[in-house]
């Protein structure tokens, strides 16, 4: 068994940004393991622009954003093994990985950075009745086929779910000559960013049907149509509202799930709300020396914030490696009224950190209030808050106390 100071699992935006910051902090022995043939993660297929506005002050496509980090990683001589799948991580930080070129690797690490990203919810998760024909894709798979493999997925498409990738794919399919008949969303509000509703649907006259879902999938070999229906507030289809829509393609954009099978193997405890790890303000999981950031921790809206989170992680991981440990984080951060989830879930109360949260449902003209022991630590007035938009609040150590749990709520 060999030994490395840091192993980074996943060479997407989080892994690449973390590697660079670690190097900058003087950590030399870094290894990135990436299962695809090239680093860059999901950005490789996100060819639309709008990436990097925060980071670089310009609107880049996904591949361009990724390439900037890949170039820097190469320039810094950071080792990245591609085509190498991590199979197991143990609680005492032994990583087992395998690949065609690299063979079987077993490496013990002082620190492990979990940056595996997320995957899509599939038809199976929805349990939509009907047959099992070809022509049903998750939005990311359709994106991969069209943008990386030059395979057109269909001609007459229906999109279920209004997540950002679904909206982006509605536009992409239209540009490539397909007819997108509509986007159906079971909730009473869209799940994607407002700008994507505007520039991906409205611009192309693609209708968005809220409180609607697909209740049946039809076709033997190939999809021939779907039945959609209006839904009540409990997401139950309303009898009598069913409508048949002929189509050969159904795109699912129904949510993303942090990919944490390896984290579980390593003994990392997951938060059922984020489906990512419980972490402290250092992005450290419950297993000392194992850190997580990016979409594997909680699904982000924007890659710019993935990079920032990964860099914050790397700052603390470098400190862990240099000092041997990090300050204890004994205080809980509690998701209170109208808050869907918070990151981190544990803090020390002695250091600055970024509090990330999503609300559980759309709200207007409210305040997000952070309290410790009843004392108001921060109050942020918000004109509107949507579950589709992550809110990040900078928390300053000078305002924090180190002896009381923190509660975040909406008033």
């Amino acid at each position: 068994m060999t030994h490395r100071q840091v192993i980074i699992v996943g060479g997407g935006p989080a892994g690449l940004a973390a590697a660079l910051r670690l190097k900058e902090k003087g950590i030399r022995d870094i290894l990135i393991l990436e299962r695809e043939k090239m680093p860059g993660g999901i950005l490789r297929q996100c060819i639309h622009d709008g990436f990097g506005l925060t980071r670089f002050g310009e609107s880049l496509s996904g591949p361009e954003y990724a390439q900037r980090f890949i170039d820097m990683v190469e320039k810094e001589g950071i080792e990245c093994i591609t085509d190498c799948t991590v199979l197991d991580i143990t609680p005492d930080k032994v990583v087992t990985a395998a690949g065609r070129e690299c063979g079987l690797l077993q490496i013990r690490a002082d620190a492990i950075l979990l940056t595996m990203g997320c995957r899509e919810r599939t038809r199976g998760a929805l349990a939509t009745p009907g047959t099992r024909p070809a022509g049903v894709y998750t939005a990311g798979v359709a994106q991969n086929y069209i943008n990386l493999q030059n395979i057109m997925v269909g001609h007459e498409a229906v999109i279920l779910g209004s997540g950002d990738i679904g909206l982006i794919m509605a536009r992409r399919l239209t540009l490539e000559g397909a007819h997108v008949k509509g986007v159906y969303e079971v909730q009473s509000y869209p799940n994607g960013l407002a700008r994507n509703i505007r520039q991906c649907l409205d611009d192309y006259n693609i209708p968005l049907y809220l409180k609607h879902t697909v209740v049946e999938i039809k076709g033997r070999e190939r999809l021939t149509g779907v039945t959609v229906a209006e839904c009540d507030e409990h997401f139950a289809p309303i009898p009598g509202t069913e409508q048949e829509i002929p189509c050969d393609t159904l795109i699912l954009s129904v949510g993303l799930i942090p990919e944490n099978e390896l984290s579980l193997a390593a003994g990392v405890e997951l938060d059922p709300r984020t489906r990512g790890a419980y972490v402290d303000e250092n992005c450290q999981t419950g297993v000392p020396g194992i850190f997580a950031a990016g979409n594997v921790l909680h699904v982000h809206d924007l890659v710019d914030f993935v990079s920032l989170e990964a860099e914050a992680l790397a700052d603390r991981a470098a400190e862990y490696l240099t000092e041997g440990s990090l300050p204890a984080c004994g205080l809980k951060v509690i998701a209170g009224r109208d808050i869907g989830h918070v990151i981190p879930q544990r803090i020390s109360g002695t250091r600055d950190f970024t509090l990330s949260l999503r609300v559980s449902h759309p709200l207007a003209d409210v305040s997000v209030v952070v309290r410790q022991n009843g004392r108001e630590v921060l109050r942020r007035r918000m004109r509107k808050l949507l579950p589709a938009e992550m809110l990040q609040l900078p928390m300053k150590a000078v305002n924090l106390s180190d002896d009381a749990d923190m509660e975040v709520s909406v008033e």
Partner: protein
Amino acid sequence: MKTVFTCIVCPNGCEIEAEHEGKQVLSVTGARCPKGEAYVKQELSDPRRTIASSVCVTGGVLPLVSVRLTAAVPRDRIFDVMREINRVTLTAPVKIGDVVIRNVLGLDSDVIATKNVDAE
């Protein structure tokens, strides 16, 4: 006349309420930055968009290279630009930033490659 716009300049997606007479903007509210007002003015007089697509590559390690526009083009010319993009086939290697079509359709916007595709 009052119109509500969703600004598409950045992910904030500000909802901007604009008081205007035809293309003449009288006042805007709801924009968190000055780009919002500029967006509304542009949107009323000459709505523009950027697009991204891909172009076939022969002899490369990938079958496609992603491309985008360097500047927004009139919204009603998007499909004309797509036709031009679809006409192109490149030969590997392609470098990120390579100009694929200069000044596409005379719209003061270049189509550039956004990915490296090495030769096989």
